[in-house]
């Protein structure tokens, strides 16, 4: 994820939502999952920014990507080095303007940042769930998000918004709960993974599963962490999130020292960068969660039950869509977004599509590229205007 230039040790800018505290919602109603299992009870961790209006009409749901979580904007403490993962787009005066909107962002089920997941205790056994945590899918997540909305008293979201895997959840919302989303913003996403995407995910999973510290997923009980596997998984992922140009621009073939040492230690800057990113990730992310979330990505294919006809799958959707892609994104290239747009057109749904010229690859969706911000803000402003939301000054 890109670095932010703002740190909390400096005074918080006016465009920040400021200090935020995560909250926990507990659910006792069992959740039947697509895999056939039932989650008897669970917690969801979430954050909110802005103020819910009296009509409860100004809520915006943020769906997170593979390694994201509930902390989308602002800071948890004054010493937090970086703000939430989507701080570039959420805050006063930003694309999702918290002077207008009440933003809800959560950590999905199966996550490792507070929501019930593989690191939580299994009430039936008293052990950690570990690899026994049931496989969760995009549709399960959306179902649990709908329950969170009920819990918050939100009948209908002014918009559901997400990038990458988050965009898939937004799509699922429009098909599963069409009456509960007034607008859908799908960024750098795809209606289903390509074989190449699945292949990358499989390499990542094999890296984790073949780590000797993995212990078939029971590493928690063995007091080990499959760090090497996670690190490799993240390195592979990271390569696919950047564009060739972005990597070339950032590192080129720069060496760390002047001479080649003809060995396998770090010699090129790009090697050093990938190892650093991998190391950092392997200490903060849970391996079983990574396996689950990549599987959720692989499984998502709403057209499948309609004989591959995506337009038919999208028939229930009732809201306008904004679809955004980035020219150098090769993880989910513009052609995949265009597939979705074409299906929406053929289903006769209102849709706007922008293909943003950016050198940053898939990661571009996290960055404040001016044209991207212009389109995103224009859309969200229109959402606010249509809802007749008064400006909060």
């Amino acid at each position: 994820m890109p670095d932010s230039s703002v740190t909390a040790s400096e005074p918080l800018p006016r465009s920040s939502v400021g200090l935020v505290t995560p909250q926990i919602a507990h659910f006792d109603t069992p959740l039947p999952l697509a895999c056939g299992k039932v989650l008897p009870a669970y917690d969801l961790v979430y954050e909110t920014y802005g103020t819910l209006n009296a009509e409860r009409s100004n809520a915006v749901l943020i769906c997170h990507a593979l390694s994201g979580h509930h902390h989308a904007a602002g800071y948890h403490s004054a010493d937090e080095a970086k703000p939430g993962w989507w701080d570039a787009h959420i805050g006063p005066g930003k694309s999702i303007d918290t002077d207008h909107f009440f933003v809800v962002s959560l950590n999905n089920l199966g996550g490792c940042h507070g929501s019930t997941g593989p690191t939580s205790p299994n009430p039936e056994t008293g052990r950690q769930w570990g690899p026994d945590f049931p496989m969760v899918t995009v549709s399960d997540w959306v179902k649990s998000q709908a329950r969170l909305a009920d819990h918050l008293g939100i009948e209908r979201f002014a918009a559901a918004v997400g990038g990458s895997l988050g965009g898939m959840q937004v799509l699922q919302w429009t098909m599963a709960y069409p009456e509960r989303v007034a607008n859908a913003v799908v960024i750098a996403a795809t209606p289903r993974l390509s074989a190449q995407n699945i292949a990358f995910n499989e390499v990542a999973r094999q890296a984790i599963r073949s780590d000797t510290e993995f212990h078939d997923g029971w590493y928690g009980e063995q007091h080990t962490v499959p760090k090497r596997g996670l690190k490799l998984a993240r390195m592979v992922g990271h390569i696919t999130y950047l564009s060739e140009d972005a990597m070339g621009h950032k590192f080129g073939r720069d060496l760390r020292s002047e001479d080649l040492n003809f060995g396998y230690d770090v010699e090129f800057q790009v090697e050093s960068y990938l190892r650093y990113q991998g190391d950092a990730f392997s200490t903060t992310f849970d391996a079983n969660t990574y396996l689950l979330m990549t599987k959720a990505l692989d499984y998502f294919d709403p057209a499948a039950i309609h004989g591959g006809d995506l337009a038919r799958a999208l028939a229930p959707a009732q809201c306008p869509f904004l679809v955004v892609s980035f020219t150098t994104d090769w993880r989910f290239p513009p052609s995949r977004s265009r597939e979705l747009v074409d299906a929406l057109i053929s289903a006769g749904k209102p849709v706007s599509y922008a293909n943003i010229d950016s050198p940053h690859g898939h990661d571009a969706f996290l960055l404040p590229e001016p044209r991207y911000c212009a389109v995103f803000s224009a859309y969200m402003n229109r959402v606010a205007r249509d809802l007749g939301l008064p400006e909060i000054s």
Partner: protein
Amino acid sequence: MRADLELIYDWVPEGAHVLDLACGDGVLLDTLSRRKQVTGYGLEIDPDGLTACVSRGVSVIEHNLDDGLGSFADNTYDLVIMTQALQALRRPDRMLDEMMRVAREGIITFPNFAYWRHRVYLGIRGYMPVSKSLPHAWYDTPNIHLSTFNDFEHLCREKGLMIVDRAVGVGDHRGHWSSRLWPNLFGEIAIFRVRRRP
């Protein structure tokens, strides 16, 4: 609205399903949807135009018209509109085929190269015309296929299309009697309404 758009507005039936190619800032589609309950999509490639459309709530798709209209199925629109883009396309003739594939009726506007001021510019001064309707210098113009009122009529005849209506725009006005009598000479903007034969 621009003079040619005003005229087009009158030609669009109530409640029509419309595809607007090169829809610019979306003002035509926006007006049509608010006043005539028209539905449909705009296609645009210019970033500012696209953002303006999104801002208005017009459904707009970023799309290069030179790539054809493959995303749109046969006969799915009542009307297809293309204002001031024909001359910038790689193959205007093929686009006309594509337009008549997705809709039975089309409205097309383009700068008339045979407009008398253009003729004077080229004929007397010997330079490529620069005018309000053709504002670019020859070396940086997006207009690569300039044509005349007569040229377009000829193309339509060749393709077996019916010309239902024709009009001209002159400056900000809808056209003087002279432009109705001699459109090829006095029409600055050519406006055609064409239909595929049943």
